[in-house]
């Protein structure tokens, strides 16, 4: 079953076309990787999917419904959550509060309940806390719940950001370079964690430069180059594709 589909999505910034008529599909339960040289439009593409950018043309469908141009908070409410390339945890607040903010749209509280039924409001918030605590357990950070996010080691902050996205119970998780700045053992545990998530039914779309990581985890890989979808295939085929090797190692038209 197709979960996400883009049709000829294009984004221009002035004279530069960051994303040029990209059409992809992501199936339910898949882990899809996206690679490509710097500036090839990967992050711009994820920004389009998550509603941070509005596309100039083309369409995006999620669960068969058109989500093109929706603001990012509505896209999250529909079940697409993401992390950022340059780590955007809320560093001045606690780990638990970070996760509770991530769970925002699943917390079934309203202003009326807050003011007119304080005990129900407290119960709803308590329940949410229990849910996010179980998320923390999954990544072995339960003991750090009350610490400020900025005091966690870098790799744990990356995990926290993923958990924050998971707190909204997304159907599709978009990860923008999750391995950046992680050491090899952290990469390994991330890989294991993502496989658990996949087993639980989460579809994952990953942008990554760490080729070894992405080749081991993704079932299908998309290669971006200069804003266009350059190749698509299983990891082995991509790895052995001389054209892909060429754009990665650089040649005259790339530099």
């Amino acid at each position: 079953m197709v979960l996400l589909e883009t049709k000829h999505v294009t984004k221009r910034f002035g004279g530069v076309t960051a994303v040029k008529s990209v059409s992809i599909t992501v199936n339910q339960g898949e882990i899809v990787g996206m690679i490509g040289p710097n500036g090839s439009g990967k992050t711009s593409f994820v920004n389009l999917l998550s509603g941070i950018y509005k596309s100039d043309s083309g369409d995006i469908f999620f669960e068969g419904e058109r989500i093109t141009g929706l603001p990012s908070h509505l896209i999250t409410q529909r079940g697409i959550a993401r992390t950022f390339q340059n780590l955007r945890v809320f560093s001045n607040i606690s780990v638990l509060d970070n996760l509770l903010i991530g769970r925002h749209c699943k917390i079934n509280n309203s202003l009326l309940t807050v003011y007119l039924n304080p005990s129900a409001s407290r119960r709803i918030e308590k329940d949410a806390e229990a849910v996010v605590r179980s998320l923390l357990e999954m990544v072995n950070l339960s003991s750090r719940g009350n610490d400020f996010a900025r005091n966690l080691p870098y790799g744990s902050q990356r995990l926290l950001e993923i958990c924050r996205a998971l707190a909204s119970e997304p159907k599709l998780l978009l990860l923008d370079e999750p391995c950046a700045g992680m050491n090899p053992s952290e990469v390994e545990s991330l890989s294991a964690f993502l496989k658990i998530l996949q087993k639980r039914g989460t579809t994952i779309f990953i942008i990554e430069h760490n080729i070894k990581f992405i080749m081991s985890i993704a079932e299908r890989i998309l290669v971006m180059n200069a804003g266009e979808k350059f190749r698509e295939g299983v990891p082995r085929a991509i790895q052995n594709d001389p054209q892909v090797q060429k754009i990665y190692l650089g040649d005259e038209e790339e530099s």
Partner: protein
Amino acid sequence: MQNKRAYVYGGLLLVLIAVPFALSEEPYLLAIINFTIVYAILCLGLNLILGYAGLLSLGHAAFYGIGAYATAILMARHGFGFLPALVISGLLALLMGFVLGLPTRKVRGDYFCLLTIAFGEIFRLVSQAWIDFTGGAMGIVGIPIPNVLGWQITSETDFYLLGMVLLLFTYVTLRMLIASKYGRAFIAIREDELAASVMGINTSSYKILIFSIGCFYAGLAGSYLAVYQTTVTPSNFRLEESCLMIIMVIVGGMGRLEATFAGVALMTIAIEFLRPFAEYRLLLIGAIMILVLLFRPQGVFGDSSFRD
């Protein structure tokens, strides 16, 4: 644990109730305390706007004024009782806060601040110039004695108790809001608006919401001021008032409600002690603010996590 807490709160409440009776021979001191209560209500609402959502509003005095004029006009001219006038004043300030909050959708940061200054000045000029409606520079006089469910509020002690009820209402309702997902959403917007929107938070609506709610309390404070002073004049709501509220919130500590009490108390004491310095007073208050910002940027009792 639960019991211990109850005792502490109970004790605190008893002390607060005892204060006016202990000070019944000191009406001046009690009057200062009553004004401190007004500022505490104003600054709690402002801390929500500034400290939690990070919106700098230099027009808070205008919402205070809207509440005060609404109560003055309703009670002095239209025979309203205090309670309905109080509720209407709060809701009117909330409505005006909503209208002024609408531009936060497009206008951010410093530009929004300019907008609030302009709103404050427009309010002051209108209140001075629209003599038929607001009484001009002379203001509105002869606001009747408030009566709350048969309780005639006349003495300083009565006003202290009324003010405390309003302050308690303000604090408790703000606490309830902040302890919910709404409070966390406000903090998320302050910390990183883009990330907040990706968490499913409708950032533009929430900014309007927080601004309106903060202004509601300013309306309540204004309503109290009207019946307490029995007159309302434009000079109560100048830009200096808005600045003083900002200073109180910053000195106390942004993003923590309890710190606001400390900020208001400290600045009130400073103002009283600096009275002999007459026109140099504002200079010295400015110096206090700069010292606080240099040595404790998160405020005297602020959250050490707050480092913006």
